[in-house]
């Protein structure tokens, strides 16, 4: 007897409705189809029409359903009742919560707005939150970029008017060789995977430069297991090789970069009376403005004026990098990469760029008016992220990398690296920083911007930092994203001044986003002995979940999950464009919250109205916006330009147009997003392409064409460097002079990122990587994801493993100049021999995230953050230098060096240190 194949229902239905919105299990912002059954979320899949993910979803995205139902979700506004850090709260009404906030904030605004510090973490509404902060009038606003990857953003924009991060992408369809520096995952999670998949399908070559061979680097055809912090050396050696062989794109350099610009005696560019930089025209020999029609800039120009010989930026660069100190042989040992491998890589790059060049039959016209019949492409592309940027030499290393790309002529060309709108956008098209704060007034302009020179620093009349995070001060003059990681310690120290209220949004500052976590916790709970008050008097925090940070706030404004609110993924902010199209998107409440929580942006709108902030109230005092959804539709940044570009005016206008009350409905009908394509002739050479410039103006990205040259030589940096040399009215304090003179070199160079921890005592580099299936701290509350990454070992390379006689299941004590942790270890052979690493942010504090106190994340899991201090150990000069890039203030997470010892497993196999359990609120 056999039982027959049963009848299967091969065509079951999933739910009764599909609602399309935007994922927010991470900042990649993919489109999702949320399947509902009787109003309950049943299944989430990728939206095939969406420009970001084209239907795919990552592990986190597919686990959204478990985030949305996690027991850790906050339920209602809360007021602290126990001491700070005790996690004792009572739930209160929204009316009480908002009134409390107003009671705290209104007097600050009336008397001294800078006493409010408002900093935001992982949010994607910075154009809105900064607008609110500007209206409030405090200079103390920034998002989290300073501890994230500002080096990448700043170096990109200062060098070529656009950056890696998610602001650009390789030309995945055409590139033949892709070199990836220091990336485990990046913000563009799915697009990078889709792209690598395309390369693999075509059999194109992927080179991974990374101390760790996993993830993207596991599929790389060639792995360069570089020693952390030395990429600058490697890149400059590649440049040396290319220059020595004369294999660089001279035509590209002459036309599109500042290489042919002539330098004056001060190292600034020669300019005409209109302030236009000058080149020598090869045809006529005349000195002419760089953008003059018909000019052929001469890279080798040498012009004597008033007895001074002026040479080009190119000459300065070539002379520097031909120096034998940049020869592969000279850097190989420090990089942990053989000279032969460096030379072959250089040769491969040149070969693919020049001998395998491609061409698209598409004519286009450049900003000098010359029409080109084809688009020539150099099919080498590169991408880099925090492996480059999270070092104290990251800015210069990132600049070096961009210069390598530019020398190969591979930026904004077919097969190369391409910008996504609203980039390209030169420094000159960005605002400078603003910090002028007065009682009862809005700030004098946007907080963050790109300083062009010392005069743009955010300093008060006495030359002291105007901002609580000391961004745009001489300590880190080009800190274009602010320095959120310095806010708590500065506020605690009252340096440069005391503040009253700390307002954080979506940042787990009491745990994984801070260096030196236990000291931060102490600062947050420290009491002033004289007044009996907390040293940081008031803390307001908005989170959606029971994070570690919640326990350290006085007032909690609970946010919804991403399926329950409006959000705006705007061109004014960090949009979701592709190289081929501008795109923006929304989130909307596909389900209503079942708790007493509100979308935080709507809460801010409400607060703005209650505080009568000008941007939020009509002249009669009534509310300008009902809620954030209303703001998304009605707000105009400049006339006709609002948060969303699609369906403006009568519904047909794109980019520019009057607010359209039906806009959100139209977005929803369209799948939650809007795409506007870049015309064919505008697809490449965007910074110099008239068609692109005009398209961008039409769309409202800027108001007139902004063609510009790439900055091989950074005049902006030279201006700061000159000040350090003693020129000009704006002078740095003396103790910073030498450092500024050195690091603000207008041509990239390499310096040892951390000169302070003794390399013989602490010989091993310690890194973290993002797990693809986890997002920082918040994946752990997810029932599915935490089964994948419930704890984290420290991976150790073979040599170190053998040296210490480690075995599976062993534990190690890991010590930095700052602290010690005891953690489980595991072997990884495909790892740079001087490097250990672990997954980022898996370790949790007991009692948080809705997890049992025995959760492996809280017992076995651990953070490296306990080993990292925001200040470097004393060097004996009486100063404490920051553990950050001296140019941008980027937190130097990856400069950590440690020593390792094998130890017995701690009691209960609990990693050390353990913190007291946070009692459940």
């Amino acid at each position, binding site marked *: 007897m056999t*039982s027959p*194949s*049963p009848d*299967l*229902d*091969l*065509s*079951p239905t999933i739910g009764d409705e599909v609602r399309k919105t935007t994922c927010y299990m991470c900042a990649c912002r993919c489109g999702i189809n949320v399947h509902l059954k009787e109003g309950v979320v049943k*299944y989430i*899949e990728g939206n*095939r029409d969406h420009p970001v*993910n084209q*239907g*795919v979803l*990552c*592990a986190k995205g*597919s*686990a959204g359903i478990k985030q949305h139902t996690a*027991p850790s979700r906050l339920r209602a506004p809360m007021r602290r009742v126990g001491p700070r850090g005790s996690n004792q709260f009572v739930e209160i009404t929204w009316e009480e919560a908002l009134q409390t906030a107003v009671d705290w904030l209104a007097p600050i605004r009336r008397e001294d707005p800078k006493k409010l510090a408002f900093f935001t973490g992982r949010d994607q509404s910075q154009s809105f939150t900064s607008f609110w902060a500007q209206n409030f009038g405090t200079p103390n606003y920034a998002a989290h970029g300073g501890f994230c990857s500002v080096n990448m953003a700043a170096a990109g924009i200062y060098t070529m008017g656009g950056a890696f991060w998610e602001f650009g992408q390789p030309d995945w369809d055409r590139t033949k060789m892709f070199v990836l520096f220091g990336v485990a995952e990046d913000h563009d*999670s*799915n697009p990078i995977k*889709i792209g*690598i*998949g395309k390369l*693999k399908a075509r059999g194109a070559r992927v080179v991974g430069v990374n101390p760790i*061979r*996993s993830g993207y680097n*596991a*599929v790389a*055809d*060639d*792995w360069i297991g570089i020693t952390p912090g030395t990429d600058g050396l490697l890149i400059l050696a590649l440049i040396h090789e290319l*220059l*020595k*062989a*004369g*294999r660089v794109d001279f*035509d590209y350099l002459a036309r599109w970069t500042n290489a042919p610009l002539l330098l004056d005696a001060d190292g600034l560019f020669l300019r005409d009376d209109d302030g236009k930089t000058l080149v020598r025209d090869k045809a006529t020999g005349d000195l002419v403005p760089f953008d003059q029609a018909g000019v*052929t*800039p001469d890279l*080798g120009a040498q012009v004597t004026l008033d007895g001074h010989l002026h040479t080009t930026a190119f000459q300065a660069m*070539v002379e520097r990098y*031909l120096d034998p100190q940049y020869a592969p042989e000279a850097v190989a040992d420090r990089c942990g990469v053989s000279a032969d491998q460096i*030379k*072959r890589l250089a040769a*491969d790059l040149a*070969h693919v760029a020049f001998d395998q060049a491609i061409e698209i039959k598409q004519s286009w016209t450049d900003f000098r008016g010359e029409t080109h019949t084809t688009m020539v492409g150099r099919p080498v592309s590169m991408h880099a992220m925090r492996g480059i940027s999270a070092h104290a030499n990251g800015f210069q290393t990132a600049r070096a990398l961009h210069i390598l790309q530019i020398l190969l002529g591979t930026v904004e060309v077919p097969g190369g690296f391409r910008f996504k709108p609203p980039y390209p956008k030169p420094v000159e098209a960005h605002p400078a920083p603003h910090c002028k704060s007065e009682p009862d007034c809005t700030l004098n302009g946007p907080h963050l911007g790109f300083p062009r020179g010392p005069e743009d620093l955010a300093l008060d009349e006495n030359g002291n930092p105007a901002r609580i995070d000391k961004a745009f001060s001489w300590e880190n003059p080009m800190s274009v994203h602010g320095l959120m990681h310095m806010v708590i310690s500065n506020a605690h120290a009252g340096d440069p001044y005391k503040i009253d209220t700390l307002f954080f949004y979506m940042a787990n500052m009491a745990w994984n986003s801070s260096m030196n976590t236990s000291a931060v916790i102490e600062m947050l709970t420290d009491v002033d002995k004289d007044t009996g008050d907390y040293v940081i008097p008031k803390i307001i925090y908005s989170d959606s979940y029971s994070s570690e940070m919640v326990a350290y706030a006085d007032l909690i404004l609970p946010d919804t999950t991403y399926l329950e609110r409006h959000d705006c993924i705007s061109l004014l902010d960090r949009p979701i464009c592709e190289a081929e199209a501008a795109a923006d998107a929304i989130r909307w409440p596909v389900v209503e919250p079942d708790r007493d929580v509100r979308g935080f942006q709507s809460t801010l709108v409400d607060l703005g109205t209650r505080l009568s902030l000008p941007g939020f109230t009509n002249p009669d005092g009534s509310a300008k916006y009902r809620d954030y959804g209303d703001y998304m539709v009605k707000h105009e940044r400049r006339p006709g330009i609002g948060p969303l570009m699609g369906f403006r005016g009568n519904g047909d206008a794109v980019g520019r147009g009057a607010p359209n009350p039906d806009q959100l409905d139209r977005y929803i009908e369209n799948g939650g997003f809007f795409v506007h394509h870049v015309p064919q002739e505008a697809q490449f050479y965007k910074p110099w392409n008239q068609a692109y410039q005009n398209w961008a103006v039409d769309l409202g990205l800027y108001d007139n064409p902004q063609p510009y040259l790439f900055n091989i030589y950074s005049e902006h940096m030279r201006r700061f460097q000159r000040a350090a040399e003693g020129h000009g009215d704006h002078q740095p304090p003396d103790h910073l002079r030498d450092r500024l003179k050195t690091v603000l070199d207008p041509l990239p160079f390499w310096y040892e990122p951390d000169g302070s921890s003794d390399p013989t005592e602490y010989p091993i580099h310690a890194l973290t990587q993002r797990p693809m*299936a986890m997002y920082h701290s918040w994946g752990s*509350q997810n*029932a*599915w994801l*935490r*089964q*994948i990454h419930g704890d984290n070992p420290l991976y150790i390379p073979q040599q170190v493993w053998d040296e210490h006689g480690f075995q599976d299941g062993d534990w190690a004590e890991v010590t930095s100049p700052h602290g010690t942790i005891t953690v489980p270890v595991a072997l990884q*052979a*495909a790892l740079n021999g001087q490097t250990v690493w672990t997954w980022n942010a898996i370790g949790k504090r007991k009692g948080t995230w809705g*997890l049992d106190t025995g*959760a*492996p994340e809280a*017992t076995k899991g651990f953070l490296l953050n306990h080993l990292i201090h925001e200040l470097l150990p004393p060097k004996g000069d009486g100063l404490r230098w920051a553990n950050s890039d001296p140019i941008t203030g980027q937190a130097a997470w990856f400069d950590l060096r440690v020593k390792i010892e094998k130890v017995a497993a701690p009691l209960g196999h609990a990693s050390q240190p353990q913190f007291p359990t946070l009692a459940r609120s």
Partner: protein
Amino acid sequence: MTTLPPPSTKKLGLVIDLDTCVGCHACVVACKGWNDQGYGAPLADVDPYGSEPWGTFLNRVHSYEVTPDDGGAAQTVHFPKSCLHCEDAPCVTVCPTGASYKRAEDGIVLVNEDHCIGCGLCAWACPYGAREMDPTAKVMKKCTLCVDRIYNENLPEEDRQPACVRTCPAGARHFGDLGDPESDVSRLVADRGGMDLMPEQGTRPVNQYLPPRLKDQGGGCAPMVPMGDAKPTGFLAWLDKALDAMPGGPS
């Protein structure tokens, strides 16, 4: 039924590209999400917020390290694994109830959960660890090849493929008919040297794995020859030489 049907001409299965898989676990969770609400009982999660969370997954991604015999650098290989829908499926023949069966029409190996007694023998018989007894429903769970998607007339045509394939961001998973030598998947297997896992077990898996391409070979270029006397000084001479050497003599 428990005896294997005569070999079908249609052999549906997956082709997994180990040269492309970045180990992101997207397929793992997409599979969980789909099957939690689809075929048969939901997939259990035991102690989901507790000290030992564990549950049923029909697809898991392992990570291995391979050290080449010639002493080259070690390699990391991310390795997804789900049911291979074997042609000689021992998990089917051992089943006492007939709950475990291989479909005659397309070779998909399934469990009829209504008939499964939860004895676990099929999981023992599977050398690949592709079957998991659900701790809550107490029936055997395994990859269904998304049989409730691939023929699903309520899904748009383009979505009639397994959830894990649809979601794989890198495109490392391919679905198709391995019985048809002309199919895309069969061609991929032929071109890239697709392989059986544990061939010595005699299960004749339908799913195929594409091996990683040869690594760490470089792009094949020899180091470049420096131009004569490229020195930091003598910029103009350097430039002249370089420009002369460039084909088409640029500006």
